């Protein structure tokens, strides 16, 4: 393949895929091209996108976090429980829940650096632990539904004509794009992911950087879970099963390398949109959920292969 074509494809591949998908989708379904549908898509992906920001930070840092779905679920039930049973005001409930999410991240990162346990294993463990805790907290898996009236603001509310989840998503992206590109620690996330030994040699506090990454990742997973619970108007311990897959797929699709040191949040956002579009058109065409799972898996595989082919060969 001609080098210039490859280079062009590489830079704009996400936009190209996006445009192609919109074209094909609008041909294939008459319900696709509507403002309502688009708002639906973006609102739907907002939770995944927020969690994917966390996944991107962690993967760029050279790690992985398998516990995001469980943390989201646990956060959702905790948020619901705090408001329904402890009658806490919403803001306090949110802050406590996010703090708990941050603590999970601290546990993930802390165990990893203190005992040199691979992140795959640590987060696999916390994935199970917090899924279990979500069930325990709800007394055996019953959703927490006795939530107050304002509970669904985050998930179903609007500010003006814009759904609240979208606003939160945009804010999260702005904050983290700034963090990764304009702050020292944001740069260190890339450094440690790109070459941990070199970073250490030049005075970067590698352990601290890793912990920061995992704290951020889990806090964002927590936020995603809070919004989801609000959207469902209840705390569901079984929720967020698909979050892990979607967050990681969006991140890889967006160009973040699994080996660490490179990736962009804009890419992840585009990746999340592409996944959202895919899910949307399959649903509009009444494709069974099981077939959707197969498609999602194929998309992830294709994304990784495409990435390897384009990144390795072009310069």
């Amino acid at each position, binding site marked *: 393949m001609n080098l210039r074509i490859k280079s062009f494809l590489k830079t704009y591949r996400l936009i190209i895929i996006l445009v192609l998908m919109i074209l094909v989708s609008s041909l294939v379904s008459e319900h696709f091209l509507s403002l309502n549908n688009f708002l639906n898509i973006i609102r739907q992906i907002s939770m995944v996108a927020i969690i994917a920001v966390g996944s991107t930070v962690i993967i760029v840092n050279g790690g992985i976090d398998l516990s995001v779905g469980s943390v989201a679920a646990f956060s959702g039930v905790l948020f619901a429980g705090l408001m329904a049973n402890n009658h806490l005001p919403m803001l306090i409930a949110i802050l406590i829940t996010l703090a708990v999410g941050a603590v999970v991240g601290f546990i993930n990162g802390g165990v990893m650096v203190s005992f040199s346990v691979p992140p795959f294993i640590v987060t696999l463990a916390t994935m199970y632990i917090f899924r279990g805790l979500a069930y325990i907290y709800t007394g055996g898996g019953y959703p927490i539904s006795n939530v107050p009236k304002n509970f669904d603001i985050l998930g179903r509310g609007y500010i003006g004509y814009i759904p609240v989840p979208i606003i939160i998503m945009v804010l999260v992206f702005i904050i983290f794009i700034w963090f990764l*590109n304009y702050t*020292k620690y944001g740069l260190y996330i890339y450094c440690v992911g790109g070459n941990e030994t*070199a970073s250490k040699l030049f*005075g970067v506090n590698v352990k601290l950087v890793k912990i920061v990454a995992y704290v951020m990742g889990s806090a964002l997973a927590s936020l995603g879970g809070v919004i989801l619970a609000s959207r469902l108007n209840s705390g569901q311990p079984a929720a967020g099963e698909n979050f892990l897959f979607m967050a990681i797929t969006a991140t890889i699709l967006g160009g973040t*390398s699994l080996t660490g040191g*490179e990736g962009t949040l804009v890419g992840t956002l585009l990746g999340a949109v592409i996944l959202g579009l895919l899910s949307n058109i399959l649903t509009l065409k009444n494709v069974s959920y099981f077939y959707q799972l197969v498609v999602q898996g194929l998309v992830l595989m294709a994304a990784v292969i495409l990435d390897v082919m384009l990144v390795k060969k072009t310069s």
Partner: protein
Amino acid sequence: MTALDNVNFDLYKNEILALVGDNGAGKSTLIKIISGAIVPDGGEIFLYGKRVEINNPIDAKKLEIETVYQDLALIDTLDVTKNIFLGRESGLLFHKRRQEIARKIIDGLDINIPDIREKVRFLSGGQRQSVAIARATTFGKRIIILDEPTAALGVRESKHILEIIASLKARGLSIIIITHNLEHAFFISDRFFVLRNGKEVGVKEKEETSVDEIVKMITGGVFVK
């Protein structure tokens, strides 16, 4: 097993010293001691007449001793600027300004890299080596240690790197280079420090010796004048 036995090593201001010896002679051990990667079982280090302790790489850096190891310790996924400034960033990063400074540093060392926004992994071996050297020599250093700077390079790039190293001397730096390539060593070095089996074989000024003599000192053969 003794890596270094009673070695007395001197480095003078503003000179290029070639540290030579066969594999296992103790060259790596010696520079690891100076750069703080290893703490010796005995012996002392003096810098400008004052006794100093170098127990870790940070100590060495504080004493303005910088080492460029063979693997270069570059972050491949980042660009030239970010690599040069590694560990020297201030709170908020202003890329444009840093790119300008990096550009000046690269140009000042006569390094040929057309686009410094390129990720370092796409640069040639010589360019990468140059970036590693640029990083080591900027920000006020006194002593630079280069471990096999030309080992991975072709003829043309080696010559360029050697010219860059030679130019560092003019900036007032003291340089230790480890190399197996005696031709390269003779091209830029002022003195030679020869190790064999952990022991000091001898120290020679360039003018008073030859490649043959150095080879004989390294291998332990007899030198016939």
